[in-house]
């Protein structure tokens, strides 16, 4: 399954209706670490899309969503498992570390 790019609360809500864990990543075009982390997310999606659904939110296009999730800096990610929001995953994280953090 491809990584979904989400812009509205409604879209996000629809994506959260899943049995898989959901990883939301907040990013922007001007943020180089975000671009690098995007490659990590692509790799995660290639290997683990059966376990984790990845959503990306461009903070320039969806400032309301970024504010709702209290995003103060990017790249910033949140894991949601069965609608329970877990602690923020901050900054760029290498692939193996990310897998360890989210437990896949």
């Amino acid at each position: 399954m491809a990584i979904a790019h989400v812009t509205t609360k409604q879209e996000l809500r629809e994506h959260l209706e899943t049995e898989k864990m959901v990883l939301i990543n907040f990013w922007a075009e001007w943020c180089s670490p975000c671009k690098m982390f995007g490659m990590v997310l692509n790799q995660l999606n290639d290997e683990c899309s059966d376990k984790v659904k990845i959503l990306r939110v461009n903070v320039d296009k969806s400032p309301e969503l970024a504010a709702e999730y209290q995003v103060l800096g990017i790249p910033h990610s949140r894991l949601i498992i069965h609608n329970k929001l877990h602690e923020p995953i901050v900054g760029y994280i290498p692939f193996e570390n990310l897998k360890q953090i989210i437990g896949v």
Partner: protein
Amino acid sequence: MEFFDCAVIGAGAAGLNASLILGRSRKKVALFDNGTNRNRVTQESHGFLTRDGIKPAEFKEIAINDVKKYSSVHFYKNTVMNITKQSNGLFKIETLEDVEIVAERIILATGVQEEFPSVSDIKKYYGKSLFSCPTCDGWELRDQPLIIISENEEHTLFKGKLIYNWSKDLVIATNGQELSTPTLNELQRKDITVITEPIQNLNGEDGYLNKVVFSSGLEIERAGGFIVPIFVRPNQFAEQLSCQLNENGSIVTDEAGRTSQENVYAAGETAKLGQSSLIVAAAEGYKSAMAVVFDSTI
């Protein structure tokens, strides 16, 4: 791996002034610059005594030339990806370009970036006729018909009253957000018009606004104005280093920029998570560098 007394992350006014003072204090400094200074879209910077009206690129060039006189300051045109505190207490800094160094102390001076209200083409006008800081750019827009684009009620009222200092011909556009009756009443008392319908588009030439078109077809002529962006840090180094944050997201620091984490300092816009002026950011960089020098002495 090369060792430095201090790594300065970010080469805006804060980071450059910090590097200048550290260089003059004979500290070995790694200064990281990835060229994403927030004022790069601005035509002129104001309010810095002796430099009022200077182009941001020229300001930066002069500042870099000042810093270059001190050979212990090393420039890295790199994007820092990770800062980790090692078990020996030193900080390892890794960049996108695979540069790795270690430093005893860190000054975070990476500034902030803006998230704009959702109005198409707003970035075309930002820095030329739409601005975010009235103290910085209000003078150039004085007495002109202005628009304030603000989607956040808390900021709308304050910005409206503040910008009234520079022009009394004000229209506030909330881009689809409703305002409470007390806010509307207060704005009405100052004869500030409020339009809550969504903005369809902005019209103008070469970044200079002349008209705002709303979804109903209503068109109003405006020469410029102000927007109320949300500010975000372009990284999460403060969080990665477990620096304590205030409720509003700013980094907890003392007056000299010391954070809650030993040997980590923060200066300029990234510390306050909001806009600053060039001279204030530079002064904060100066103070954080002094703190580095003092703290490494005693």
